[in-house]
């Protein structure tokens, strides 16, 4: 059948299933292409090299499925409602964003339809707004200290600009008001011009 399977774009387990089918189809496609090449009297090694792009795509799809599945499985271990809710939103975003980036695979295999892809793109925008209020809290949860992050832009207190100015002042080029290169090169050059 060329018609898509039933997919609820809000249901993670249904989306994991779609990733699984995509991986299976791409592995099967690569294996069949190798087989066909071998039937055309190519050696297995040459057939392998001739289908290396498909093989990498198949591995990529397999790994993507594993990541999506493990993320979804993890949600099952989380009891706290607030945390579960925000992580579910993130997992859904990760999953749908992956589909949007690889839409060709899903459409070509008949796993999703064009209207569903449009629905996904709308849903992604909803998820972005939904995550907006929790964005800082979600990165705070990684719990990096300022020393381990070592970033003026990423400071916990958000006082970026005054610290950036201070950091720049410490540059070795600022250790003297007039750099020695002025006396060595620019001043003599000026005299010659």
């Amino acid at each position, binding site marked *: *059948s*060329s018609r898509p*399977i*039933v997919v609820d774009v809000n249901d993670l387990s249904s989306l994991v299933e779609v990733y699984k*089918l995509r991986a*299976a189809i791409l*592995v*099967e496609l*690569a*294996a069949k292409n190798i087989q066909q090449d071998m039937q055309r009297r190519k050696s297995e090694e040459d057939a392998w090299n001739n289908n*290396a792009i498909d*093989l*990498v795509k198949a*591995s*990529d799809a*397999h*790994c*993507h499925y*594993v*990541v999506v599945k*493990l*993320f979804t499985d993890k949600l099952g271990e989380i009891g706290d409602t*607030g*945390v579960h*809710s*925000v*992580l579910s939103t*993130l*997992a859904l*975003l990760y999953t749908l*964003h992956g589909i949007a980036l690889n839409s060709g695979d899903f459409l070509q*295999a*008949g796993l999703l339809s064009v209207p569903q892809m449009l629905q996904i793109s709308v849903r992604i925008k909803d998820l972005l*707004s939904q995550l*907006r209020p*929790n*964005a*800082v*809290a*979600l*990165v*705070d*949860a990684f*719990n*990096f200290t300022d020393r*381990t992050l*070592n*970033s*003026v*832009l*990423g400071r*916990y*207190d*958000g*006082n*970026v600009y005054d610290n*950036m100015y201070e*950091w*720049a002042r*410490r540059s070795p080029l600022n250790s003297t008001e007039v750099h020695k290169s002025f006396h060595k090169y620019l001043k003599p050059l000026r005299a010659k011009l």
Partner: protein
Amino acid sequence: MNPDIKRERENATFNVETLTNILDGSPQKTKRRREIESLVLNDPDFWEDDPNFLSRSERYDQAVRKSAQMILKLREYGISDPDEIYCYKNCVHPNRAEPLDLHLGMFLPTLLNQATSEQMDRFFMPAWNLEIIGTYAQTEMGHGTHLRGLETTATYDPSTQEFVLNSPTISSIKWWPGGLGKTSNHAIVLAQLYTQGKCHGLHAFIVPIRDIKTHEPLPGIVVGDIGPKFGFNEIDNGFLKLENVRIPRENMLMKYAKVEPDGAYVKPPSSKLTYGTMVFIRSLIVGTSAKAVAKSSTIAIRYSTVRRQSEIRPGQPEPQILDYQTQQYKLFPVLAMAYAFTFVGQYMTQTYQRITGDINEGDFSELPELHALSAGLKAFTTWAANSAIEVCRMSCGGHGYSRSSALPDIYTEFTPSCTYEGENTVMMLQTARYLVKSYRLAKNGQQLSGIVSYLNDAGRGRVQPQTV
């Protein structure tokens, strides 16, 4: 506190501490991590000059000083759990690799996994006490991930019961191992084993390269630093040329494969065991990818809440950059990726430990799956993380370009993971080999288990989109 970021925190709909505990594994682990962090952060011995303003030689010097302090302090505080050592190290050397990384992360684990009990007695305590400082020399100047193509030879001489090691060509010179240039006095060298006139493939040998007391290179050893790189400024990645270097028979790591005194070769139970250390590191890299993305997204998202520019509605004050949909579209998928990879990293560590436990009990059945999974996920996560860090840098406007943002350093320190411990395309092809093999087995009626069990249906022609 900047009022914008303060307000963001007040608006959150969940308990941040609960989520931190989940990421660490438990509230106890969070508590212990913070204890370790404060040990380092409050210790004046670890204060440093800002590396951004130092030369490479000064950065290496400062890193060696801190690593030496780190070893002393780990002993002083009795920190011996590998996770806690890793956490301590990450605080001492934030966002960067350090000169003893290969000693702690590859030399010692290789001894633990591949040395016989006699070899452990000889090498482990000296290595633990840094009399022996080791590295892991596998990659050659002209050969990387394709291990069968490595050219370094170890030829057994039964008359003296020694191996003679050689770098037969320029392209066979060992190239890239961290700590090899100036720090290490020993290297685990991967070389093609020749005995009784036959080549038996790649095996690991412990090779002294510098005098333990004077640190001078030993006869037949040509060793040095390979020069500045894209990142990795604190590390002396090195080269090593071996010219008829003789080592005793007992210096071949012989927990699995063996060479008897007369030169007879005893096969290992699985050829993949030689590469166990790489599998270990690949498993760890998945978690490292998560950390790099988590750090980058933390920087970019925090800055996007305090940075106000342009206007959405005419005449209104400049909005927070994070209110722009395009900024959210750049950063929130990256944030989601950070969480996804963190959980995958946790899974990989648990899976590695479980399967390694089985291997130690003599069960090698899951080794091929571990190989395939660690190779594929290493490639998948490092590729994705590499792009994600760059997205974060670009989303910080011009300031992401400044070294003060830390994003350039995170990027340059992380990027090599796409090529070290296996170039990513080659890794993907290794995983593909396992997938295709599994598919063919399923097609022939064999029942697959584990993460590839979904191919059972594909093999029997049942993977088809179903009609509504």
